[in-house]
């Protein structure tokens, strides 16, 4: 039987989406439902002196109005920071309370204060206008770079500082820097981004007064985690009385990891008012309250020899957490960032110091790449600048510092199991016609245009997160994944996974894997996810973990099925289990060549009396049925890597930057479905190029979000991109049985420095901050003209 793993199988999930039959949360309606509208703070920082709901309560169609006072009285807990981080001095991080409805202070524009439930959406909106909140407006802290010198916004959080974290050895770095011929320095801003999944957040809650069970339909990447947080920390309901369903979810990119205020409030309120509740965010609510990404202010230095060898690296970063620390908020700028700081290079001494600060802006959390784009941007800007300042070719300086062998033990944390960085960069050079660039630059010049080329070589640590590794770093969290493979008596199979697909194509890839393991057509397999009443507890999807963690759990469960199948087949064929071979869906007795298909075995496991021999096929010590589950905790991260090359052309008269060519060569280990992997790279590249050239989240000095709609925040569109040129090198991961590595975030990690290196190359080395908008680039072109004129 031909292997399905590795083939371009069309997606099982496509037909429903293409015919309009997807079922997203906002598509769900429950009889007798009420509509929720949240009253949100219009101020970035204010004391809430009084909330008067009397007028709203009298408004037409209103069922209930609830505030932070009621939710506090009911002892409903707030939102949580999922990862504990310690400061360099050993002190624990400082985390303020984050109640689901603000009761005393509002700390960002859009923070919910009260909620109105009404018979119709129009009536809920009208009533929400009538909730009167008396605010004492306070001076907002907005700029992360100034946060530590500003008035603390939270009680007991001195200097607005959550932690001051260090990874690495300052002394070793000082010694390395003392030996350097040259120190390369950069000051960088990693611009704040809004993830912008196309489906706005939503929730629909149904409370069953008979069973006292709450069912929450929600836009989540991890329904079990939402249930856990709401139950263990939120006190909303015990886990067995809370069902969380994440049906079709229209993209997440990290913004749907957190359980949010609205889900907690609506679940709590549904029980209180004994009515179903529906809430759907408008796009501006999403901009204001979805967790944002990035937002670092960084100073970094690289110590080099004159012939381009790297000796040491240091990074001092201020990371903006926004108003509150959320699930991945504290770990994103530390353990997802620091360990990747030295990139794909041998750098004998390194440290990263991160100060995470609170500001009166929307909470910042994981966004596609989470920490690794920030790390890659820093090291790859430094390396490119080093090449420029030392007069060494930008690919040669990289080659010179790549590791010569794998496993590659890095200075800071990671031991990279596999890879071939030289092969990746060579292939990218060839695909991009790197050698022909000079001719293309001259041609652009002749047309009055500036052409630049940029390179970046990256690796990342994903497949989060091996518990042992994470625990040893002191994070107090580990992330395994669950799977269950359930044969029905007639041989159809349900594969349950704790991973969640919101675009990642699990219905297809997981079916491919299971079909190969079990030797059955993938049409016989349904992948089930997204419902806490169906699947065993699982961790969900983020950090490029679905295949490398969740997929391996499925493989392991399949292996248990085969092991049991062998025992059953052995009894049925009257041989010992070690004389049975399993191949292409059949259990074969090696000597007699008698066989049983896996379907026959499944049937026999469930319906033992219906067989010709009339005796049980279940061996002694085994139980009837054919269901196996597995929990998989990976031994290590997976380490995808690659090299990307970008060429841009700038029109100096307009400042417009055009991406002319983009070549991405990635190593994702063994590839399960090339169509899907390419799609993941395309999407990641679009988001990364978006960060480099278009997207920016802008707060004014009072903390008002200036970019809170698609009229103001530049989402990349089809005509912003050339056709991407993709290539792959495949070194199999040695840390998992499939040899796979994560592919979901790589595009967004590698592309911002690749594009910015090209833009800065075109601008003759002039530094420019992301996004390189036409205005900034035009100004840089003018400055360049002036300095050229002076030189002449």
């Amino acid at each position, binding site marked *: 039987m031909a292997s399905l793993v590795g083939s371009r199988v069309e997606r099982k999930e496509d037909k429903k989406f293409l015919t309009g039959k997807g079922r997203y949360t906002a598509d769900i309606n429950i009889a007798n439902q009420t509509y929720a509208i949240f009253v949100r703070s219009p101020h970035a920082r204010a004391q809430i002196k009084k909330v008067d709901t009397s007028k709203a309560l009298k408004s037409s169609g209103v069922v209930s109005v609830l505030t932070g006072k009621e939710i506090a009285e009911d002892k409903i807990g707030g939102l949580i920071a999922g990862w504990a981080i310690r400061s360099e001095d050993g002190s624990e991080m400082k985390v303020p309370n984050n109640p689901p409805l603000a009761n005393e202070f509002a700390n960002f524009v859009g923070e919910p204060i009260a909620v109105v439930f009404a018979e119709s959406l129009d009536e809920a909106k009208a009533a929400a206008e009538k909730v009167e909140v008396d605010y004492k407006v306070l001076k907002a802290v907005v700029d992360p770079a100034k946060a530590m010198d500003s008035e603390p916004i939270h009680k007991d959080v001195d200097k607005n500082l959550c932690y001051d974290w260090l990874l690495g050895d300052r002394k070793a770095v000082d010694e390395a820097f003392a030996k350097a011929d040259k120190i390369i320095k950069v000051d960088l801003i990693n611009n704040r981004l809004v993830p912008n999944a196309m489906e706005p957040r939503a929730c629909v809650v149904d409370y069953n007064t008979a069973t006292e069970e709450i069912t929450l339909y929600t836009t989540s990447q991890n329904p079990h985690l939402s249930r856990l947080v709401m139950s263990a920390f939120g006190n909303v309901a015990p886990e067995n009385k809370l069902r969380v369903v994440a049906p079709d979810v*229209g993209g997440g990119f990290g913004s749907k990891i957190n359980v949010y205020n609205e889900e907690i409030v609506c679940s709590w309120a549904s029980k209180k008012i004994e009515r179903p509740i529906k809430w759907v965010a408008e796009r501006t609510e999403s901009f204001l309250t979805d967790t944002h990404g990035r937002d670092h202010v960084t100073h970094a230095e690289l110590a080099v020899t004159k012939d381009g060898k790297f000796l040491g690296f240091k990074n001092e970063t201020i990371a903006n957490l926004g108003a509150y620390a959320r699930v991945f908020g504290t770990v994103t700028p530390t353990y997802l960032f620091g360990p990747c700081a030295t990139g794909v290079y041998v750098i004998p001494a390194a440290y990263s110091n991160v100060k995470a600060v609170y500001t009166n802006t929307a909470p910042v959390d994981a966004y596609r790449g989470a920490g690794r784009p920030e790390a890659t941007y820093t090291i790859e800007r430094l390396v490119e600048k080093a090449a420029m300042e030392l007069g060494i070719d930008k690919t040669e300086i990289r080659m010179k510092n790549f590791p010569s062998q794998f496993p590659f033990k890095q200075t800071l944390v990671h031991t990279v199991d596999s890879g071939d960085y030289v092969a990746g960069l060579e292939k990218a050079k060839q695909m991009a016609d790197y050698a022909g660039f000079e001719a293309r630059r001259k041609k652009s010049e002749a047309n009055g245009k500036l052409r630049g080329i940029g390179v970046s070589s990256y690796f990342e640590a994903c497949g989060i997160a091996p518990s042992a590794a994470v625990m040893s770093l002191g994070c107090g969290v580990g992330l395994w994944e669950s799977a269950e493979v359930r044969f029905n008596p007639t041989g159809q199979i349900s594969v349950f996974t704790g991973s969640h697909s919101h675009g990642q194509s699990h219905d297809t890839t997981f079916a491919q894997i299971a079909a190969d393991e079990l030797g059955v057509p993938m049409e016989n397999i349904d992948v089930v996810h997204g419902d806490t009443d169906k699947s065993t507890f699982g961790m969900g999807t983020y950090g490029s973990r679905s295949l490398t963690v969740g997929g391996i759990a499925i493989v392991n469960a399949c292996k248990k099925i085969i092991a049991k199948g062998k025992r059953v087949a052995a009894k049925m064929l009257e041989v010992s289990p070690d004389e049975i071979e399993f191949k292409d869906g059949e259990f074969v007795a090696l000597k007699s060549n008698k066989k049983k298909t896996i379907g026959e075995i499944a049937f026999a496991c469930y319906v033992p009396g219906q067989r010709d021999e009339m005796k049980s096929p279940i061996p002694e010590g085994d139980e009837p049925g054919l269901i196996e589950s597995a929990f998989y905790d990976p031994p290590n991260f997976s380490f995808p890597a690659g090299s990307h090359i970008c060429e841009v052309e700038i029109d100096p008269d307009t400042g417009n930057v055009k991406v002319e060519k983009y070549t991405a060569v990635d190593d994702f280990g063994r590839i399960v479905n090339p169509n899907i992997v390419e*799609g993941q790279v395309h999407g990641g590249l679009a988001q990364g190029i978006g960060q480099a050239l278009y997207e920016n989240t802008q707060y004014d000095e009072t903390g008002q979000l200036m970019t809170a709609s698609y009229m103001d925040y530049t989402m990349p*569109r089809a005509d912003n991109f050339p056709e991407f040129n993709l290539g792959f090198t495949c070194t199999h991961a040695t840390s998992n049985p499939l040899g796979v590595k994560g592919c979901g975030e790589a595009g967004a990690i590698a592309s911002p420095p690749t594009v910015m290196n090209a833009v800065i190359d075109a601008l003759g080395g002039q530094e420019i901050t992301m996004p390189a908008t036409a205005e900034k680039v035009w100004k840089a072109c003018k400055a360049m003209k002036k300095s050229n004129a002076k030189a002449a």
Partner: protein
Amino acid sequence: MAKVTLEVNGKQVSKEVPDHTLLSVFLRDNLNLTGTHVGCDSSQCGACVVHVDGKSIKSCSTLAVDIEGSKVTTIEGLAKDGKLHPMQEAFKKTHGLQCGYCTPGMVMSAVDLLQNKKNPSDQEIREWLEGNICRCTGYQNIVAAVKEAAGKM
């Protein structure tokens, strides 16, 4: 309240709705045609694109009463007799969708493009789809889908 009568996906429908009811709301809430999505409320993202009298429009910024008597085709009305439309087939073949949220609008918009221009260039496709935002695909396989469908319609 206003009475709105339309032909939606070949069927005559008539509903009494508030005057300010948007076509997107009319389709989703009154007809339960939830394939038409709302992604931005500001006529930017294109998840809500449907055809009115054969032309693609954004249903989130069209009042239902304003198109009284028109023929509306939504994503649910594109496949005929259980057979996918060539554009739907092409999106499937080229992996032109991931999370599926922008897909209905993207498909309806792309169908209109090919009605206007049989064999558009890559650049023409990209420019036409400027009013449809996709966050998942980076647009490359959507462009490939439109090229795949061209000539098959």
